[in-house]
């Protein structure tokens, strides 16, 4: 009994000395600033900065290899914090949010065929270009929802992806998984968007979707500076977003939406009420 305690104790002592020595001798120098930076980064490891995770970005920041405003989830607040830690001047990039440019859920947009396969938009898109007749509409199978590290995307019961303006940090993960390029980055300050992604001619769009843009130019005629129509699809000129509201009621298919007054039908998300977030822009 005693021998056992003694021998184990001796082994423990020797190992402790060896470990202590190794810890001193082979210590890895960590820049204290790097730790401080890592502390303030959001820690979502979303990859929006172009690095695999927050640690990589922190390292690059301290080494001065990259701008301070490359972390969309952190936003303006983070840029100020980073500037304080690193002792440099920096200005935040204009905050952006992702928007699903489609309102054609399974109720409003026509389906080409019954889809019973994998719950994945990319897999569905490979079968005759997806079950929706519209070539650009949201498939609603939730690939973006599963990719979102911030739980900002909702799939409505009728199969439409809706992104919360409050939760979206602009990391672009959803954009990289959407097989139809239906999601677009837009300036956070603008709440008005043309929610359609079909470049088909108006007559064709009307056949397969009740709420798609038919390229009629009425929005552009109402507020010429706030809209541009290319290839039968209207788009908000975001620099002029403040006057874009005026055309909303004029749109014959109601495909222009102001997110400040409400999210697309079927969504449980409530319109943006937090003035601070919208003022931050």
């Amino acid at each position, binding site marked *: 009994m005693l021998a056992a305690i003694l021998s184990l104790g001796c082994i423990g002592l020797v190992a402790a000395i060896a470990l202590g020595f190794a810890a001193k001798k082979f210590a890895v120098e960590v820049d204290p600033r790097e730790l401080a930076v890592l502390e303030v980064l959001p820690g979502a490891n979303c990859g929006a900065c172009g690095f695999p995770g927050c640690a990589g970005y922190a390292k690059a920041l301290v080494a001065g290899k990259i701008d301070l405003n490359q972390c969309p989830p952190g936003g303006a607040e983070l840029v100020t914090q980073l500037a304080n830690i690193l002792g440099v001047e920096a200005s935040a990039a204009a905050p952006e949010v992702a928007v699903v440019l489609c309102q054609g859920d399974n109720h409003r947009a026509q389906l*080409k*065929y*019954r889809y*019973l*396969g*994998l719950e*994945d938009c*990319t*897999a569905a898109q*490979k*079968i*005759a*270009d997806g079950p929706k007749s519209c070539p650009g509409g949201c498939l609603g199978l939730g690939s973006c929802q599963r990719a979102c590290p911030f739980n900002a995307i909702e799939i409505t019961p009728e199969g439409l992806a809706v992104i919360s303006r409050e939760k979206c940090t602009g990391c672009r993960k959803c954009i990289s998984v959407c097989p139809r390029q239906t999601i677009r980055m837009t300036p956070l300050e603008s709440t008005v968007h043309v929610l359609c992604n079909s470049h088909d001619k108006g007559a064709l769009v009307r056949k397969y979707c009740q709420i798609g843009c038919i390229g009629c130019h009425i929005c552009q005629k109402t507020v010429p500076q706030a809209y541009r129509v290319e290839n039968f699809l209207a788009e908000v000129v975001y620099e002029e977003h403040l006057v874009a509201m005026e055309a909303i009621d004029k749109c014959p298919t109601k495909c222009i939406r102001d997110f400040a007054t409400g999210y697309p039908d079927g969504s449980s998300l409530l319109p943006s009420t937090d003035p601070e977030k919208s003022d931050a822009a």
Partner: protein
Amino acid sequence: MAIKLKTFCGGIHPPGNKQWSAHKPIEDCPLPEEFIVPLAQHIGAPSTACVEPGQLVAKGQTIGAPKGFVSVPVHAPTSGEVVAVEPRPHPWGTSLPAVVIRPDGEDRWAEELEAADPNDLYPEDMVERVRLAGVVGMGGAAFPAHVKMSPPPEKKIHTLIFNGVECEPYLTADHRLMLEEPERILQGIALLRFIYGAERVVIGIEANKPDAIALLQAECKDTPVEVIALEVKYPQGAEKQLIAAVTGTEVPSGGLPMDIGVAVQNVSTAAAVTDAIIYGRPLIERICTVTGSAVREPKNLRIRIGTPLSHLVAVCGGLLEEPGKIILGGPMMGFTQTSFDVPAVRGSSGLLLLREEEVVCQAEGPCIRCARCVQGCPMHLLPTTIAAYARRNLVAEAAEYRAMDCIECGCCSYNCPATIPLVQAIRYGKAAIIAKKRALTL
């Protein structure tokens, strides 16, 4: 005398359903009002249009020029006027460029087409004639025939197998061709044998076509061509499974039949080769079985390439009811269509119209590890494992389980009692593997 028929390991036994059309002689399909001839009908680079709207074309005139080696020209199915060159709905599910021709009813052949005496031709000339005629594999995959006919010199082909299996349920196009036009097939076989310089020539036919087997056996009596009856099992007509059944050797994983000195051609391809080499006729028609419970009168039709499906249905007496599923090709590997506006193409061996109640629409259930997919897999893979990896985007693991060997025959999905979309998942995985490989090489 009990004979054990030759076959491969794995596979399934779906109901044949060939009785609808097996006894129906081939009928010439009347010309439709409009032909839609897609420029992409084969594996490889699509051809480029070489006619313009308003131009008059003759039957057999080249309307699409090939682009690159793995590509074939496209020809006018009849004489008439080109009304448009524009994207049109394609059997592959999207809109792809096509030449739209309105027939003039004269059905006049182009003058440039020449017959030739095969005795005056070298193998290279024959292959060139096959290429110019736009011959592709007629079994359904539509791989350019001239590419298959030009193996690299170090790969000597000693066995040439002709595929008269037609293992897809419902289809009887090859069956009728073998019964009604054996001389066209046998001429093509003789030509292909000469081109390949093969020692052994085999025609493999599934045992559910005893009349075709007896007829071809009688025709081949004094020739070196063997006619072999094969077990009735799907996918007996898949290239690698046919080779395993006939030669007893398997094509190595990731390899091609030519690696073991074997080449496989469909019997309809042999007939098209005859037309191309001897008569100089391009591939503008094929046999297509229009069948299924939703069509009034199932038929075997000799159709021109580019005939809209709506016309085929009309020729067969119309629909009995609104079909629940429209499939171009066989039920196992064909392409499901969403409308009748698409044209039949070179690979369209059949048009299948199923009633709503025949279409199984069952939600996916959990895998119960019954291994029926493993049992059915003719490539000795573990479909459920590969599918599970593919669904989780574990690309390297899927590749390790040989996802790329999958021939997408659908046996696993057919067998699955939980209706898991196994083939779709594996196909998704295969696409991810290819994308990853491409990203690594760039």
